[in-house]
C-alpha cells in the first residue's frame, strides 16, 4: 500500500518539476524564474525524502537538509542581486 502511495507521490512531484521547468523557460520576469527555482528545490527535497522512505534508510536526510540550505541561500542571493545590484555589500 505504501508502495502505491509512493508511486503516486513520485508522479505528482515529477509533474511538478516539469511545471517548474516550464515556468523557468517561459517566465516573463526574473522574479518568476527565481520563484520557479525555489519551488524546484522544495520539490527535489520532497523527492529525496520519499526516496528515503522507499529505501527504508535515513541517509537522505542530510542530503535534503543540505539541498534546503543551499536552495535558500541561492534564492536570497539571486533576489539580493536584483534588489541591490550586489550580493555582499
Amino acid at each position, binding site marked *: *500500500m*505504501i508502495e*502505491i*502511495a*509512493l508511486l*503516486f*507521490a*513520485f*508522479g*505528482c*512531484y515529477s*509533474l*511538478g*518539476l516539469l*511545471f*517548474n521547468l*516550464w*515556468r523557468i523557460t517561459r517566465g*516573463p*520576469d*526574473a*522574479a*518568476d524564474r*527565481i*520563484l*520557479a527555482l*525555489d*519551488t524546484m528545490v*522544495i*520539490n527535489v*527535497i*520532497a523527492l529525496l*525524502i*520519499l526516496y*528515503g*522512505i522507499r529505501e*527504508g534508510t*535515513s541517509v537522505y*536526510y*542530510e542530503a*535534503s*537538509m543540505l539541498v*534546503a*540550505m543551499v536552495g*535558500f541561500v541561492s*534564492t*536570497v542571493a539571486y*533576489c*539580493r542581486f*536584483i*534588489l541591490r545590484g550586489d550580493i555582499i555589500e
Partner: protein
Amino acid sequence: MPGYAEILVSTFIVLGGLFGLVGSFGLIKLRDTMQRLHGPTKATTLGIGSVLIASMTYFYLIKGHVSFHELLITLFLFLTAPITANFIAKAYITRHIREQDLPATSSDYGWSVYDDPPGKETEEG
C-alpha cells in the same frame, strides 16, 4: 492486510503529493507574478510538511526508531519560505512598480524597497 500504520503513512504521502502538485500547478496556472507567489510558498510548503510527517510516522511506527531530522527540515523550510517570498516580492516591486504608484504607508517611513531603513541616518551620523 494493511495495518493502521500503513494507512496513516499512505494518507500523508498521498496528501503531500497532491499539495505539491497543486502548488506547482498554480505556478503555471495563475496569471500574475504576485498571484503566482501564492502557489509555491503555501501549497508546496504544506505538501512537503505532509511528506515529512509521513516519513516520521513511517520510521517510528514501522521501522521502530525515532528520528528528529525531519523536524529540523520542517522547521528550516517553514522558517525560510516566508523570507524567500518576501524577497521575491521585493525583487518584483523593484523592477516593475514605480515609487509613486505604490500606496502610502501609514508610518513615517516609505516602502523598504525605495527608502532607507529607519535609524540608518543616526547610525551613519
